[in-house]
């Protein structure tokens, strides 16, 4: 009952609250089906109760917001239904169609009491979210990006995003490590959460890490398995699928589940149903490379053998042909040589004969000619011999005459003849006096005449004027 204070009717807070509660209870006595986005589930594990945060958004803006309660018993039933139908638990960020009544508590205020949630509605919503992701990836040009990357002929270096203790990871390693062909695949684990909402950021974090050491790897493998089919809607996240599609290396997936393919698997470079199949796919790549190498090796051996055999055959054939041909040629040549030999013998004999005749002729000719020459020469000699005495006596007479003439001349010129003609010769001290200068006054000189000598003394001398 309101109190009257200073002409005013005043209610207590509790009275107002109780009034609201009473009004709401009479106005909203039954339950309604309501659709809203469950922003947060707010599940408290110690009590098992949930206090979901419900919103309605318009163009991304919150236009209505209300708290709600979901008690432990209902939560468990609903969650089972979700897991069976959606392969997803009740979680943050899904759209729900729920049956609720409006409650009002004086302390906690207005809230919706959730009694049931229809999984079909959420399933449709998740599916349409998945379709929206696909549509956006396509319109933004990401959808086929990773598929366009070429897996190397030998994918040897693999960055694995997985959980170390998971069965899928163990299966994968088992196949690649124990392959009977001894193919060697290098792998490096980047551990991540692989299901539930946290998987998105966890996988994206590891992708960023791999991006930093991308030059060490040929491809990325996302491997999951053994975790059941629950909590895979994270693989439909636009952010995650965009990061995978846009990754510089081919990303291959082996997520291991029986439900419809997630968007991640759709956009990955290659998807295998299980990690084991993914490992087999890699080994197949090695086979694909090894097989042509092996067949090239075989072909090479065959061809080399064939070529060698062929050339051996050719050689034998040539040798046989050569032997036949040479045998024939040799016997032909031998015959020819014999013929030539015979002809040579004959011809040289004939030639010799003719030379002998020629020589005989020549010698006769020589004999005749030489006799002739000797005769000629001897008659010439004879003639000369006859003429020598005649010619020589005439020569001697002439010489004698010349000598007499010379003797006469000499006689006229002799000193004796000169002395006879009245000339005398002067001497001084045994030396001939030829000039006035040879004597001085008082010198004793000797004069020789034809019949004796006169010794005299020089009284004077007079130089002859020779003008």
């Amino acid at each position: 009952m309101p109190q009257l204070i200073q002409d005013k009717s005043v209610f207590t807070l509790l009275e107002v609250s109780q009034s609201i509660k009473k009004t709401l209870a009479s106005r909203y006595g039954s339950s309604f089906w309501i659709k809203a986005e469950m922003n947060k589930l707010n599940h408290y594990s110690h009590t098992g109760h949930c206090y979901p945060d419900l919103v309605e958004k318009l163009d991304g803006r919150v236009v209505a917001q209300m708290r709600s309660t979901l008690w432990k018993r209902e939560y468990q039933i609903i969650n089972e239904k979700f897991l069976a139908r959606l392969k997803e638990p009740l979680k943050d960020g899904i759209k729900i169609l729920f049956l609720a009544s409006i409650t009002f508590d004086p302390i906690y205020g207005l809230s919706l009491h959730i009694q049931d949630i229809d999984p079909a509605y959420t399933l449709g919503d998740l599916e349409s979210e998945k379709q929206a992701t696909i549509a956006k990836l396509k319109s933004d040009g990401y959808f086929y990006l990773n598929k366009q990357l070429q897996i190397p002929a030998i994918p040897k270096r693999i960055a694995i995003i997985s959980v170390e203790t998971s069965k899928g990871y163990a299966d994968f390693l088992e196949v690649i490590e124990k392959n009977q062909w001894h193919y060697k695949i290098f792998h490096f684990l980047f551990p991540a959460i692989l299901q539930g909402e946290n998987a998105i950021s966890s996988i994206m974090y590891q992708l960023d890490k791999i991006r930093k050491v991308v030059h060490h790897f040929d491809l990325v493998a996302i491997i999951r398995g053994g975790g059941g089919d629950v909590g895979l809607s994270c693989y439909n996240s636009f952010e995650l699928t965009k990061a995978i599609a846009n990754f510089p290396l081919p990303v291959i997936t082996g997520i291991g589940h029986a439900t419809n393919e997630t968007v991640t698997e759709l956009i990955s470079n290659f998807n295998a149903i299980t990690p084991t199949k993914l490992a087999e796919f890699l080994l197949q790549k090695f086979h694909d490379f090894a097989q042509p190498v092996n067949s090239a090796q075989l072909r090479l051996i065959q061809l080399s053998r064939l070529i060698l055999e062929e050339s051996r055959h050719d050689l034998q054939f040539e040798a046989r042909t050569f032997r036949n041909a040479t045998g024939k040629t040799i016997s032909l040549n031998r015959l020819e040589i014999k013929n030539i030999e015979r002809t040579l013998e004959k011809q040289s004999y004939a030639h010799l004969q003719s030379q002998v005749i020629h020589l005989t002729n020549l010698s006769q000719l020589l004999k005749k000619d030489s006799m002739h020459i000797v005769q000629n020469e001897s008659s010439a000699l004879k003639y000369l011999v006859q003429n020598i005495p005649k010619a020589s006596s005439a020569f001697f007479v002439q010489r004698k005459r010349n000598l007499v003439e010379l003797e006469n001349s000499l006689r006229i010129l002799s000193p004796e003849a000169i002395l006879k003609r009245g000339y005398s010769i002067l001497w001084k001290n045994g030396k001939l006096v030829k000039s006035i200068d040879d004597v001085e006054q008082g010198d004793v000189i000797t004069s020789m005449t034809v019949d004796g000598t006169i010794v005299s003394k020089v009284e004077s001398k007079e130089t002859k004027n020779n003008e």
Partner: protein
Amino acid sequence: MNKKENYTAAFEELQQIVKDIEEGEISVDDLSGKVRRASELIKICKAKLTSTEEDVNAILKDLESTDS
């Protein structure tokens, strides 16, 4: 990249040799040389399948250096 794709080049060369021999482009004189080269290439290709050059420590070192 070049080093990484070595085996593809090796395989292509191998195939070319086989093709040349198949088409009779190779004389008996060249055959032994070609076969020797081909077996080298086969060895390279097979080694690529059964060995690895990647080093875990190098990756860890690279990861650390980019973290800082």
